[in-house]
């Protein structure tokens, strides 16, 4: 479980040019929950992620992981990172090892896991991320953009941490690669039952896989609720220049003419609902 209490963070806290990045953030996530963080650029999403994995220390407030306070109750950043791991934006720019295998094994090796177990972990995570075994001997630097991204995500998955934070994991990928990667991440989460935190600008993705959604605006927590309840407040989101899932928008347009359930966010459910209305009006498929 991860619990955040009254979390505040100021950049350059001690100087006159102090900038408040986060103000009074409060939320609790139970184990095996997926949380999406949404908000416009500069709203404090990445800062929150860095605070959660101990790379920044809070100006005020506390973060607890299984009742242990982050930074205070851990020996060092390394120990926190083995429990809370993060993949930064465009993680493919940070690859450095000679082979894909070594890149994925880097984290587990630092954790002190034996080579035989590391091999098992590497082969396990490449299945999730659809990396072929032949690719393991290749240099990560010469892979394609999508393959590099998969390799970078696999390398954080290999740490098997209790909390995994992904900062815009699908940014810059094509539609098919996006959904493939999100499915891989979701499958991994289902197996590991860890807490997954995804920072995203893709509302379809967020609505599809998240149990909870945290909305940030200029460092302030606007909402923390289930996706259905969050996206129901579409007016608030639109004021922040944030999208809502397209299906949800279509349902709202239809609702202007015919009463329909506007909580629906996915195409399949929308199809069923529309067909139900058409049938009730005597229109056949």
């Amino acid at each position, binding site marked *: 479980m991860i619990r955040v209490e009254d979390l505040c963070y100021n950049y350059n806290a001690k100087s006159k040019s102090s900038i408040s990045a986060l103000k009074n953030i409060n939320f609790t996530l139970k184990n095996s929950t997926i949380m999406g963080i949404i908000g416009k650029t500069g709203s404090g999403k990445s800062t929150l992620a860095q605070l959660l994995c101990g*790379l920044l220390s809070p100006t005020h407030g506390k973060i607890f992981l299984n009742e242990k306070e982050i930074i205070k109750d851990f020996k*060092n950043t390394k120990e926190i990172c083995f429990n809370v791991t993060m993949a930064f934006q465009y993680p493919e720019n940070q690859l*450095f090892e000679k082979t894909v295998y070594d890149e994925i094994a880097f984290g587990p090796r630092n954790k002190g896991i034996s080579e035989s177990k590391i091999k098992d972990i590497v082969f396990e995570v490449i299945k999730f991320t659809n990396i072929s075994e032949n690719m393991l001997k290749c240099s990560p630097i010469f892979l394609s953009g999508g393959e590099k991204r998969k390799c970078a995500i696999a390398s954080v998955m290999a740490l098997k941490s209790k909390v995994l934070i992904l900062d815009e994991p699908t940014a810059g990928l094509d539609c098919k690669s996006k959904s493939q990667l999100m499915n891989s991440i979701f499958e991994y989460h289902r197996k590991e039952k860890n807490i997954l935190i995804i920072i995203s600008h893709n509302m379809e993705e967020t609505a599809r896989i998240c149990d909870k959604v945290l909305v940030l605006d200029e460092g302030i927590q606007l909402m923390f609720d289930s996706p259905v309840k969050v996206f129901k407040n579409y007016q608030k989101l639109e004021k922040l220049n944030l999208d809502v899932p397209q299906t949800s928008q279509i349902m709202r347009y239809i609702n202007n003419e015919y009463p329909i359930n506007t909580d629906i966010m996915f195409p399949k459910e929308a199809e069923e609902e529309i067909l139900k209305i058409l049938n009730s009006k005597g229109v056949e498929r």
Partner: protein
Amino acid sequence: MNNFEFCKYFSGNSIVHKLDARIKIISSLIFFILTFSSNNIISLSIIAISISIIAVVSEVPLIKYIKSFKSVLIISVITAFINLFFEAETNLVCLGELSVSLSGLKSSIFLFFRLFILVFISSITMFTTSVQEISLAFENLLSPLGYLGINIQEIAITITLSLRFIPVLFEETYKIINAQKVRGAHFDSKNVIKKIRAFCNIFVPLFIFSFKRAESIAIAMESRCYDVSKKRTSLKNMELSHRDAISIIFLLIIFTGVIICNKMKIF
């Protein structure tokens, strides 16, 4: 590393900010020469006091200078420490094969202060001169080389881009360090070898990033028809003012003072 302040322009309206960039660059060079030619405490003090006055007049917050010093502190200490053992005179302390002499101690202290003064001078110039001004100043100062067939525009644009991308590179380094930290890299390790190895791992992604950035900038410039061989005019013409004349007089006084003091036989 996130607070990398060296080379970052601090916008202001002070007299130092308003000085001609060419004068600032030439003055810095003269100060460098004076610092290394000074052979006694008085001449070094004259330089230190004069640049302190310039720093105060520049209206740049003191904390910015302190941060600049911090970034070169380790190098200065190591250099001064090594210098301790390179003067063969009456020994003060013997550490096995190595011995520390009074002149060694003196030259180490001098070297340490010289390095600090150098950083101080460079910081004043960098904090008070924008990248565009520096580029234009270099272009102006190096223009006589054009008669020898050397492309000055090319040198100027190289200098501009190098200076512009120093903070970007540091930001990227910070990102890479964090990305590796979350995967358990040994940056905080007490074992020096592990720590060095951890830092070596930064170079591969950093070099790739730099080359990619350089390539994309080159493509972006070419796609906007940038041609280095074309003669360029500038929006801002560099002209010397009465302020620059006063600063030259000030520099001449310091120069004379330091030369006179160097001739005196003081510690």
